[in-house]
């Protein structure tokens, strides 16, 4: 056994906990999860059945944790998991899964398949079977501070543009602020309007906030690729900045996986609770709305629908807040069929968008979203994840659908009553 393979197998073993054993023990191979996964429904390829993507890790469990498996292993009857097998599974584990967790909602025996897939990536990465695109993004996140290689000067330039436009300063490294805002590289490079919108809303609502120059990146490639050590290091940078600036809250921007990484995985990656609270921008905006600190004017007459980012809604628990906010400004808010925690993924989450090899497949499975949208034919599609947003735009473009994709934060900012 090669050293890398041994690392991988050991990582699988380390990842196997009570839930994983309960899940593997319960699977009766009914195949219902296939119909919950857009990578199966849009390709018809049975290999992409969610539970099958876990096969090598299941075999490790079977050989190491069950009576027959251990007996078989002791007698030399079992075929150990090989390097070739892991190589074969790499496109299933990374290209064909966005960790969207829809399968986990339908499994009749209750298997949380996405929970296991996230764990499986730890073993895959340790064995050296993670896609090149994600390896590159992770390296850039560690060395440069951003998976897209966006460094502080780039952010400063964008901030200067926004400041010139707005006529007031964007708070950077302000100690004692209440809220520390994180941003995704995607927002800094492609959607600087988001920074502008947040700045306007926070000024309007009188929110004391800051950006930290030493920890502004919200995304965590370590989580997506499945390397907990790196993921923990990226979380520690944010924790250190939050401590230095003495903030009470850290705000995850419009990014699903960033929210998952900092809100739910972060404390477990570093092995201790935070001294601050984490909110998704949708949660904070909804709190401001509830407190009467958001005053809007005018209403959207076009029909709007909302795309729930998987890690924000199904895996993150922020479902109602964006709807409350949309109802402030929309006359005609329509839900897609299968929405909220049962929404279909855009196809680009979980590191798929960083993995160029998966580009074709990603566009192929976008047909699922297309069907969902065609069922209601809205005038605009609103979401709260910049990664979803850019790949929704790309998918719509690919299929010749003309539908504007909007950020909820930005749309809300357009309706703010200017205090003058």
């Amino acid at each position, binding site marked *: 056994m090669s050293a890398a393979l041994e690392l991988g197998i050991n990582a699988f073993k380390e990842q196997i906990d009570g839930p994983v054993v309960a899940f593997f023990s319960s699977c009766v191979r009914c195949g219902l999860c296939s119909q919950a996964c857009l990578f199966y429904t849009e390709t018809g390829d049975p290999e992409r059945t969610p539970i099958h993507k876990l096969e090598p890790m299941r075999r490790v469990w079977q050989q190491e944790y*069950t009576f027959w498996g251990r007996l078989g292993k002791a007698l030399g009857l079992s075929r150990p998991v090989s390097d070739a097998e892991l190589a074969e599974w790499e496109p299933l584990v990374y290209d064909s899964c966005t960790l969207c967790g829809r399968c986990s909602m339908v499994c009749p025996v209750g298997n949380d398949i996405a929970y296991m897939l996230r764990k499986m990536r730890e073993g895959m990465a340790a064995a050296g079977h993670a896609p090149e695109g994600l390896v590159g993004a992770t390296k850039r996140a560690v060395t440069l501070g951003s998976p897209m290689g966006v460094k502080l000067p780039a952010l400063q330039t964008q901030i200067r543009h926004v400041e010139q436009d707005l006529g007031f300063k964007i708070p950077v490294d302000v100690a004692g602020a209440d809220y520390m805002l994180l941003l995704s590289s995607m927002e800094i490079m492609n959607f600087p309007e988001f920074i502008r919108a947040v700045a306007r809303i926070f000024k309007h609502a009188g929110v004391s906030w800051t950006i930290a120059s030493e920890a502004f990146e919200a995304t965590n490639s370590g989580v997506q690729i499945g390397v907990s050590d790196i993921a923990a290091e990226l979380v520690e940078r944010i924790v250190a900045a939050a401590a230095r600036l003495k903030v009470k809250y850290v705000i995850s921007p419009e990014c699903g996986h960033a929210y998952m990484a900092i809100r739910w995985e972060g404390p477990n990656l570093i092995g201790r609770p935070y001294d601050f609270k984490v909110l998704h921008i949708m949660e904070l905006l909804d709190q401001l709305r509830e407190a009467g600190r958001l005053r809007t004017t005018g209403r959207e007459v076009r029909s709007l629908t909302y795309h729930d980012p998987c890690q924000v809604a199904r895996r993150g628990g922020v479902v109602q807040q964006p709807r409350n906010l949309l109802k402030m400004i929309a006359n005609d808010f329509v839900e897609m069929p299968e929405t909220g925690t049962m929404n279909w993924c855009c196809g680009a989450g979980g590191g798929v968008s960083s993995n160029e090899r998966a580009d074709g497949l990603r566009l192929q499975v976008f047909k699922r979203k297309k069907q969902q949208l065609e069922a209601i034919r809205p005038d605009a599609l609103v979401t709260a994840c910049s990664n979803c947003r850019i790949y929704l735009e790309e998918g719509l473009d690919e299929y010749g659908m003309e539908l504007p994709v909007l950020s909820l934060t930005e749309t809300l900012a357009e309706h703010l009553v200017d205090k003058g």
Partner: protein
Amino acid sequence: MTETELLMWVRGPLLQAALSIFLLGVVVRLLEVALLGRKPDYAEARGSAVGGGIRTLITRFFPDPGTWQRSTFTVVAGYLFHIGFFIALFLFAPHILIFRDALGIRWPALPTPMVDAATLVTLITLLALLLHQLYDKVRRFLSRFQDYLVWLLTMLPLLTGYLAFHRIGLPPTTLIIMHILSVELLLVVFPFTHLMHAFTLFMARYYNGAIAGYRGVNS
């Protein structure tokens, strides 16, 4: 050994042995899950893990509308088979007497013709499920030797029970012996196959619901 002696041995010491393997095996398998447990969660909870776990235990009995629509056969056949199997096992008067002798508790039986009909429906459903397993591309792809074995071992007690009740083909005593033997086979294999799901699914659902519930999601 006469046939009667064989029957006594099969329903006596052999059944005891099969039950022992079953019980010990199941307990070990459940302990495997319980002893591994979970690491503590340091993220601040939004909802209740326990509440979510209990919720999902119940809600997973009911498929979501999309699954119902896209996988109607699997859902309907799955339900029919399980309900029929439970009726035959627990609501057939002679079985209740066995449980009463062993456990000291009893419950009302269904009229025998109803149990008979349910058994027939279950056997037909099992056959349909096997055909589906052979012809549906996902299920055929996922199925391994164990899955077909488990199908066979589940079907045999129902079939032999049905034949024994109707005295079809062989002498009644022979059929009863075969029926009990098939049950014993099922019991012995149970802890080592995914038949275990009958117990572990409650743990799986609980964990699924607890992980989601902690984050404020109803899964």
